[in-house]
């Protein structure tokens, strides 16, 4: 997994995909400073999660990166292109799926996809093949000839994803892509994002349903009040977080913890919760418990890493 900071700015011919680099991006709407200093990079070949509470500027940031909004200050490059000075090239290398979008009622799903394929410069033949393979991949083949208005919310969401992917973009910007998807589709979306990252694409996903990002993301960018927040707390090796423990003999486990001087609490499910400083501590605890003869069978973080980080962020905000 390579971190690709473009070292040479300028409209050079870019080989492969160079991800997203944003520096000091600001964008206000009147008095509202929606994005107020965002600096981050999302490398290619990885899934980067964009996380923040409602109103933290996620959607605005994605609009800026999609080449639709001019930043008031700062610069951003997507796929190697400056989003202001090389707007057209930047747009062409980005697949953007907004959080809400409409469809053309009178058009079938296939026609919509073909329209966008040609709007991105694909030949009709290439567009047809691409549409067919995307319908297959996103389980929309049976709806291909139906008007888009009959689709359910989840199906529309999948069509929107197909639309964002139709030109095989090297950078994907997905704004709440999983909303409206059923559990099975969410899992498939996750796998799809992984595949895309593995193909070398840059994937930036925003969501506030953290559990669905938990298993797919490689990096996380946290936004709070329009700013990127230093997310040191997410270093899994050292971050303090709650762990859930369970053993065949709960009494033995508690005795062990008491002897080791580790404070614990009881969870609602009857399990034991301890605060540990990262995975290293957890590993040491397991080793010690096993050595002490405690029949430990479960040890798991109480919350996902993202959730922990997000909550830490929330505390910082207060």
């Amino acid at each position, binding site marked *: 997994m390579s971190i690709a900071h473009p070292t040479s700015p300028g409209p050079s011919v*870019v*080989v*492969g*995909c160079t991800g997203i680099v944003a520096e000091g991006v600001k964008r206000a709407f009147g008095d509202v400073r929606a994005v107020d200093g965002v600096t981050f990079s999302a490398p290619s070949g990885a899934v980067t999660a964009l996380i923040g509470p409602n109103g933290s500027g996620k959607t605005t940031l994605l*609009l800026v990166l*999609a*080449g*639709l*909004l*001019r*930043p008031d200050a700062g610069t951003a490059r997507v*796929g190697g292109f400056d989003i202001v000075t*090389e*707007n*057209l*090239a*930047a*747009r*062409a*290398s*980005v697949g*953007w799926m*907004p959080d*809400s*979008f*409409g*469809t*053309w009622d*009178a*058009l079938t799903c296939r*026609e919509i996809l073909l*329209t*966008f394929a*040609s*709007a*991105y*410069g*694909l*030949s009709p*033949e*290439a*567009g047809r*093949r*691409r549409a067919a*393979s995307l319908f*297959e*991949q996103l389980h929309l083949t049976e709806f291909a000839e139906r008007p888009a208005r009959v689709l359910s919310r989840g199906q529309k969401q999948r069509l929107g994803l197909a*639309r964002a992917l139709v*030109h*095989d*973009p*090297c950078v994907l910007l997905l704004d709440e892509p999983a909303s409206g998807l059923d559990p099975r589709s969410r899992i*498939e979306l996750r*796998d799809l994002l*992984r*595949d895309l990252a*593995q*193909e*070398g*694409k840059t994937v930036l996903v925003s969501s506030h349903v953290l559990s669905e990002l938990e298993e797919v993301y490689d990096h996380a960018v946290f936004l709070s009040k329009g700013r990127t927040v230093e997310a040191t707390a997410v270093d899994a090796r050292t971050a303090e977080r709650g762990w859930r423990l369970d053993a065949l003999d709960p009494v033995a486990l508690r005795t062990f913890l008491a002897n080791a001087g580790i404070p614990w609490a009881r969870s609602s499910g009857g399990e034991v919760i301890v605060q540990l400083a990262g995975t290293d501590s957890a590993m040491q605890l397991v080793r010690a418990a096993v050595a002490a003869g405690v029949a430990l069978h479960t040890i798991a973080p109480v919350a996902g890493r993202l959730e922990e980080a997000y909550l830490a962020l929330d505390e910082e905000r207060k």
Partner: protein
Amino acid sequence: MTTPTTPGATAAPSAARPATGPGTAAPGASASLGFFRGLWIVTRLELAQRIRSRKLYVALAIWFVVIGAVTLLMLAAFERSRSQGVSSASFGPAAFGTITLFVLGLSLLVTPTFTALSINGDRDAGTLAILQATRLTAVQIAGGKLLAAWLLALGFLVAALPWIIVTTVMGGISPLQVVVCFLVMFVEVAIVCAIGLGWSALIGRPAGSTVMTYASVALLSAILPIALGFASMLTMRDDTVRIWNYAGDPTVLTTQANDWAASGFAPSKRPDWSACHPENQVITRPHVESIWWLIAPNPFVIVADAAPLPPEARGNLETWAGRSGDPLAFLSLLTRSLSLPPSNDQDQCSWALMSDNPASRNYEVRSTSDGSAFVVDAKGNVLDTGSPVPRRIITANTPIWPWGLGFSLLLGAGMFYVAVRRLSVPYGVLPKGTRVA
């Protein structure tokens, strides 16, 4: 092109170098799309939305039936008046002109609906931003929408064409007139489409842009002419005008004129005007020629003035308009007479030619719009009586419609430019109350 990988499968060998299929948009490829191809993508998208809706066909059917009904009613009325001998003149130009103006008026009512919602409506529907995010440029999106709306408007005009052709069976209308009137109407509806497009880009709320588009059309076609009417009162001025009166015995003059007519209006037999004398008089009258241009961009005036006239009509529009009953010629005459300063000589002498029994005469005296008298033969041709009074003759030799059409085109181009500016990404300032997506 990446093959559809089954979810969860390990990366294909080609994963290291993605996007290497035919037709795939390579990330670094020069990001442009053939201008006309991009334009046509948007046009097709817009047209598909309309063409597949039943509403369009219902509207077209109503359109066809209404215009047909009015045409047939009018032809029936003309037939009846012809059979009762009201006039022997050909009804062709009158019928053609009336229906042409009627079709133009209906087009001006229908056309705004094709573009007045095309940008803010799409924004509301969430289909605009995803188009703007593609390689399509603002010019292609605005142009595609304009072209689609224009093609729809053309469809309506073409649907009216059969009835316009029906009116030409009454005679007196050349194919050239039909073609030119249609071409000018094509341009007029394109201008209205562009105005609607501009408003739909400027105003976020669909109701607002619809009102403004209709208001703009109303401004050109009705409000400015009304304004001209009121403003003409402000151009009132005292002028010293020479009124020419006949001091002799009118019956002598009439007898001379009848001899002249009997000779086939031979120049040597013209009546004797020695008793026709000028007299200075101060009258207060409007000078609309300083503000006549208010009606130059009027769509009806433009079409009427652009309509080709038969060669014999060009020399004297006043004669032709009266003879043919052609509303297009009347409108053109009205506009031209407003654009010219009123004559400083008023012929009252010629009225003396009408002192006998009309049945024995084969000429007629008529009045011009600025109060002079003139003489025409039985066919309506203006005669040179040899009268000493200088006359203002309104000809159709130099067209005035290019000015109005040119101004309208500039207006349409300006509104199109506004639409392009408002569609250009990345957005700097967003129009009030609008979101990107």
